[in-house]
């Protein structure tokens, strides 16, 4: 009995130490975000003096000001537009390509596939200078189309890899049945392969959404005009121009961060799956 008691107290002690450790990390994860939201609700006068986490009088109109005056409304819509079109493009191209790689045999198939995989190895710093020159020559620099094409290209390799491994594992019988019923190759892809691949497609969509939303480098080198910029680049230019308006900057940051956090909270399952699978790819 005494022994049992000893083990029990020891276990509780260890568990509470672990909980304290984990909780302290949790606090360090969340407090900067709370501070960001808190600061966004202060005014120009109180933001420098009031260091409390939650301001006594919340100023919600900051969000309106940032949306209108700071122009975050425009940048927000830009980001939404880029994200949506890039993700749609990636899903279309990568699912078609992955399906072809998995099902058809054509000359040079392996070489092309390995070229896609090799593209994953090239670090971005090595490629953005030539990319800039290329876009300049094609007159696509400082256009929405140029940025969207580049971003589709960035996301392709990983998406193709994920989808191809999935198609390789799914049985062919269903598709053969569809072919006997008179379905064309494209029809099979649309009616059979894509619906089957929904779980993987979800990973692809969620991952690329986050990726495009958070992208910065390419947007920085491609866009010159302000009204084309996505949120991330707009934030850094905002910081340079309105150096003193910290409350509006914080409101803008919150506007940028909230969609990502929402997507993350609702799509957590897919994100965690994607991280662990993507790690195996890398």
């Amino acid at each position, binding site marked *: 009995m005494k022994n049992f008691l000893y083990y029990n107290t020891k276990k509780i002690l260890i*568990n509470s130490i*672990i*909980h304290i*450790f*984990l909780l302290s*990390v*949790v606090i*360090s*994860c*969340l407090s*900067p*975000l709370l*501070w*960001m939201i808190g*600061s966004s609700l202060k005014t120009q006068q109180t*933001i*420098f003096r009031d*260091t409390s986490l939650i301001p006594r009088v919340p100023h919600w109109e900051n969000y309106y000001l940032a949306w209108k005056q700071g122009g975050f409304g425009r940048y927000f819509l830009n980001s939404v537009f880029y994200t949506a079109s890039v993700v749609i493009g990636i899903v279309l191209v990568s699912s078609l390509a992955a399906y072809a790689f998995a099902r058809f045999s054509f000359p040079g198939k392996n070489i092309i596939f390995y070229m896609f995989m090799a593209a994953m*190895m*090239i*670090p*971005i*710093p*090595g*490629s*953005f*200078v*030539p990319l*800039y*020159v290329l876009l300049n020559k094609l007159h696509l620099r400082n256009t929405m189309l140029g940025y969207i094409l580049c971003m589709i290209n960035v996301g392709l390799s990983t998406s193709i890899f994920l989808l191809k491994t999935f198609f390789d594992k799914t049985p062919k019988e269903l598709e053969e049945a569809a072919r006997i019923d008179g379905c064309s190759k494209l029809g099979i892809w649309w009616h059979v392969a894509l619906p089957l691949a929904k779980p993987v497609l979800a990973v692809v969509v969620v991952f690329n959404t*986050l990726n495009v*939303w*958070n992208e*910065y*480098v390419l947007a*920085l*080198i491609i866009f010159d005009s302000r009204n084309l910029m996505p949120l*991330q680049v707009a*934030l*850094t230019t905002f*910081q340079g121009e309105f150096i003193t308006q*910290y409350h509006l*900057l*914080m409101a803008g*940051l919150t506007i*940028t*961060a909230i969609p*990502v*956090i929402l*997507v*993350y*909270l609702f799509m*957590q399952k897919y*994100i*965690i799956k994607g*991280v*662990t699978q993507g*790690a195996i790819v*890398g």
Partner: protein
Amino acid sequence: MWNAVYITIIALTFQNALAFLLALACDREIRFKNFYRMVFFIPPVLSEVVVGLVWQWILDGNYGILNSWLVKLGFPHLARSWLSDPHTALNCVAIVHSWKGFGWGFLIFLAGLQTIPRELYEAARVDGANAWQIFKKITLPLMLPVMVLVGILTVLGTMQVFVLIIAMTGGGPAYHTEVPVLRILASMRGSSRFGYACAQGISFGLILVIVSFIQYRFSHKARNAY
């Protein structure tokens, strides 16, 4: 270049040690496990611009919350302008980078730990092994490939860090936090020397590939030794 290496070393040791400890702590029957896992991955999903700007505001010399807390807690001599002081700027950037990055390592470590069959632990316990022996003889060798993987990912990710730095310090004070990618961008946009920038980019890319290749070979040897 050395700045990036410095940040990488801090990220490799500090960030991954933290991630591994957290993963070990979560890899057991413990309450709120999913809650912890959810929170730890919030910093990685945020964009580097957001993270950088928020931390810049926290570490601000005159109005930042860190300094005001230090004063309140009775350490006014520790308060300083963290990001414009050459002695602390690089460390601050490295710590913020680790703050943002440990969630990745945590998730991958946790996934790795969960693939270790429970029977191994039970067999060891029946044979009378204590916790430390189990950790050293079972967990560590089986986790080695995962560790190498996280290591490579950390090195590749950290050597290319620069958005965070643009948002936090812009390479200053006086180039104390400048990193290779920032230099490439500067020679491209600042002085329009495209050939030079491209050469810098390619040589930097080659260095990255070589580093990850060496790490991979090293891990192969280590795995064969067990």
